[in-house]
């Protein structure tokens, strides 16, 4: 059985312990916790009145208002529930990139996934894990038990990157499988068609999911530091290669990269989703902490 220390160092664990994770929107949960539930029920915290529509339970009618105004209103209450967070780990071939400094993107992604799972489990939230390339590979539903964390870590330990990316397809499939609303944490380099990806994100958002995208970068992909002639081979397709002088194309590449990132940020903002860039040569926990601090301020 995999242990947390296989993926995270003791220092990481010290820094991650006690980090609260807040969901910005109401979560559908099955136990009372820190997060507000979208289910309106018999909680003590009144939420609102709304007009009765056919199909509403009769027991939730507010008879006092009917007595005063001769109209039917339903009385709604907020209910605190725990968080259902699903970590979506992109395991496509592009995540296997080993940078010129020796770091492997997928290693970093696995650490991030482990760190998130550890933090969420620690605050009694339900955590699930999905690994995928152009299709779903592993699907671990959300649970709150501590033993469930080991199951997740096991799966992470076993998973290897490979295959093509088709984020949009995977997210649409996922939409049909996730019955209850929750927090989706996508760990991916997002090397897919941005438009289709955003469409899929839109679908998930309509289902009430909150989405955080941890976009993973190697420093090479951001700086394009190559100077000698190079043959660039696609990590996901065997028949795609380019022989070129990197120095000659660098400026244009950086321009295209900038546009790609800006489009993605803008599209996700439209869908009220967050994008957190993670760079493999930066400390993992620092990135997570910085993001959580941002969420708490919001």
């Amino acid at each position, binding site marked *: 059985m995999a242990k947390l220390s296989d993926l995270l160092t003791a220092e990481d664990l010290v820094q991650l312990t006690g980090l609260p994770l807040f969901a910005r929107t109401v979560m559908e949960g099955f136990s009372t916790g820190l997060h507000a539930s979208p289910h309106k029920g018999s909680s003590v915290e009144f939420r609102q009145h709304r007009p009765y529509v056919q199909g509403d339970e009769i027991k939730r009618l507010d008879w006092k208002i009917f007595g005063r105004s001769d109209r039917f209103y339903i009385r709604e209450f907020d209910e605190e529930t725990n968080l259902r967070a699903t970590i979506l780990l992109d395991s496509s071939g592009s995540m296997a990139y080993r940078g010129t400094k020796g770091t492997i993107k997928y290693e970093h992604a696995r650490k991030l996934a482990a760190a998130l799972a550890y933090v969420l489990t620690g605050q009694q939230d339900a955590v699930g894990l999905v690994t995928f390339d152009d299709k779903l590979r592993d699907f671990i539903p959300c649970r709150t038990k501590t033993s469930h964390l080991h199951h997740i870590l096991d799966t992470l330990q076993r998973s290897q990157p490979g295959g093509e990316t088709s984020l949009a397809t995977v997210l649409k499939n996922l939409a049909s499988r996730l019955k209850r609303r929750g927090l989706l944490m996508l760990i991916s380099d997002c090397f897919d068609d941005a438009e289709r990806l955003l469409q899929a994100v839109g679908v998930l958002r309509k289902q009430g999911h909150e989405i955080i995208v941890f976009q993973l970068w190697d420093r090479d992909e951001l700086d394009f530091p*190559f100077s000698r002639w190079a*043959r660039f081979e696609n990590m996901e397709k065997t028949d795609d290669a380019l*022989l070129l002088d990197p120095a000659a194309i660098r400026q244009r590449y950086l321009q295209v990269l900038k546009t790609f990132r800006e489009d993605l940020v803008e599209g996700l903002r439209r869908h009220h989703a967050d994008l957190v860039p993670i760079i493999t040569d930066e400390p993992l926990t620092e990135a997570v902490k910085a993001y959580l601090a941002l969420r708490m301020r919001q």
Partner: protein
Amino acid sequence: MSFLNPILLAGLAAFLIPLIIHLLNKRKVVTVRWGPMHLLHEALRQKKRNVKVEQKLLLAVRISIPILLALCLALPVLSALSQLPGFDKTSLLVLLDNSFSMRAPGTGGTPRDKARNDLRQTLAGLSRGSDASVILAGAPARRLLPQTTTDLESLPTRLENEPSLSGPLALQDAFQLAQAELPKMATAAREVLVVSDFKWSDWRHLSEGGTLPALEGLLKQEHPPLVTFLRAPSDTESNLAVVSVEPSAFVVARGQAIALRARIQNHGPRAYQDVAVHLEANGARMRSTRVSIAPNSESVLTLSHTLDTAGDQAVTVRVEGDSLPDDNAFSVIIPVREQVNCLLVRGKSRSGPLEGATDFLEIALTPHQSAATTLKDVIRTGVVEHQSIRDKSFEGSEVAILANVERLNDRQVQELEEFVQRGGGLVIFAGPDMDLRWYQEKLYNKGKGLLPCSFNGFGHVDEGQTPARILNQRHTHPAITYFNDARGMRLQDAAFTHWLKFDKIEGEARPILNLDRGDALMVEKPLGKGRVIAVASTANAQWSNLPLQPAFVPLMQRVVTYLATQNAAPQSQLCGSVLRASLGTQQAKSNYELKDPASQVKELTPRADRDGVIFVDYADTLVPGIYELKAKDSPGAEVRRFAFNLNPDESNLDPMPEEAIRTMAQRLGATYAASQDEYARLDRTRRHGAEAWQPLLFALIIFLFAEVFLQQRISRA
């Protein structure tokens, strides 16, 4: 197109370097397994076409840079361009050393031949439309052609006829001619080429720090010409030369023996043993002797000969045995006369023997007659008291001598002046009876009279003091040069106790002899066609013991014969100087024939100068030897002879070391070329190189900027 440094064209291969780097870069590709390929595709899609074109352009620029650099360094010459009218025209002014040392034989010919060939090549290398001029720099400097010419092929032909027999280089005169010539030349690209054998004797002055003002002036012009020294070398260093022949007398009587002192110089390290020396009279060999001369030394030998025919006789001393024969002979003209008449005018008579003012003079001028020997004196003297001078007293005399004459009357003075004006010679000895005031007023007459200078009292030596002596110095006056030779008699033995102090020696007057007390002893002044010599002492033993000295005889003989022959042909002249013969009124009626040393006859027509003197002249006297002048179509007419000799300074063939020439050239602002090849290289670089490599260099700079620009542009792509 040709190249001045073709070896540097090998640098063209450097164009392979960027090409190889490019190919190696493409070959040594690294493989990168890459994730965001869609970003690379997008980047390439946007800039693919431009980048490829620019990369190829950059490669072409990088290949071109070493090619342009190699071409620049190889100094291309666009010869095709220079053929076009108006391109690459040059004005070349040649200062050619035509001193006779250029005739010295050597391996590969004489310097004269080499210089001529070098010039032929240089002129052939000039482009069409160029002009050239040649100044012959040997003394006297002159132009080869009266004006510059664009007919460059004619110059070498003209130089063929130039014998190169001139005297030492007259550089100052030659550069002055160059200064006058350069502004007349057609193009602004002017070049002065000095071609010489660079002998020490010609260049020592400049090599040892002397200046050449005419060259400095030339280089200070607004557009100074390029000046190059080109050497035409000779490997001959040994040379024998007869440097002078000095006759014992200016004039001899017919049948009188004359001694000829010949100096034969051995220039160079070779010793000459038993070299034959010949004495020739009017071209016929009279006698021969032999002489041995050590290296770098001189031999003096005396030959005597008796001339039996009156008139101007030519005597030549000739030496045999070396490879440069031009300076092996030296000729002089000896005037042979029946006699020279000298009138002695004495002052107050003394009764005792040898106390008369002219007694010593009579003995000195007619020693054989005085000694009652059978030998013949050339001078015949006549003695008169000064009161006895009448009209035409001087007729028939060539020289008159006044000795201690108190004063003359006006008529006598006029008679005397006319005598000197006609060409007579006058010697005035001082004496105690002289009326100094009269001499000052009438004979000096503020410089217009007969006396060469004024008086400023008497000089004397007190009792017990050392007597005054004749200053021991090198004499230059032809009447006195005889006493320069230490083996001759000593004038310095004469002791003077009294003398006249001469003053105001100015104008044409010049001292001939000086006393060691700072006063002049003899002063000479030309007057009309004649000359006057004033002597500060007496002609007898009253004031000095000079008349008692043996030297008094040759001194007076030489002074008198010098004055008697002053209008005769010079003993010898330097080649290149003008032959001029004065003619009497009767002689002017017919034309004259001049036979030169090569026996070629030229016809000369008498002319008259501004003073009405009739003369013939002839300037082409470069060939050394005897020139004979006689009236045309007159078989029995008198033959007048003229001797022309080469300047003995040119006989020393000791060459300057190359380094010394180079240093001198650098100091004078000129460039030195040791050979025609070196000069041609210099010339090509200066005339053509700049025009071809400058555009290439400009293109190279543009390409370097283009490379940087493209590199930046591609990296931004």
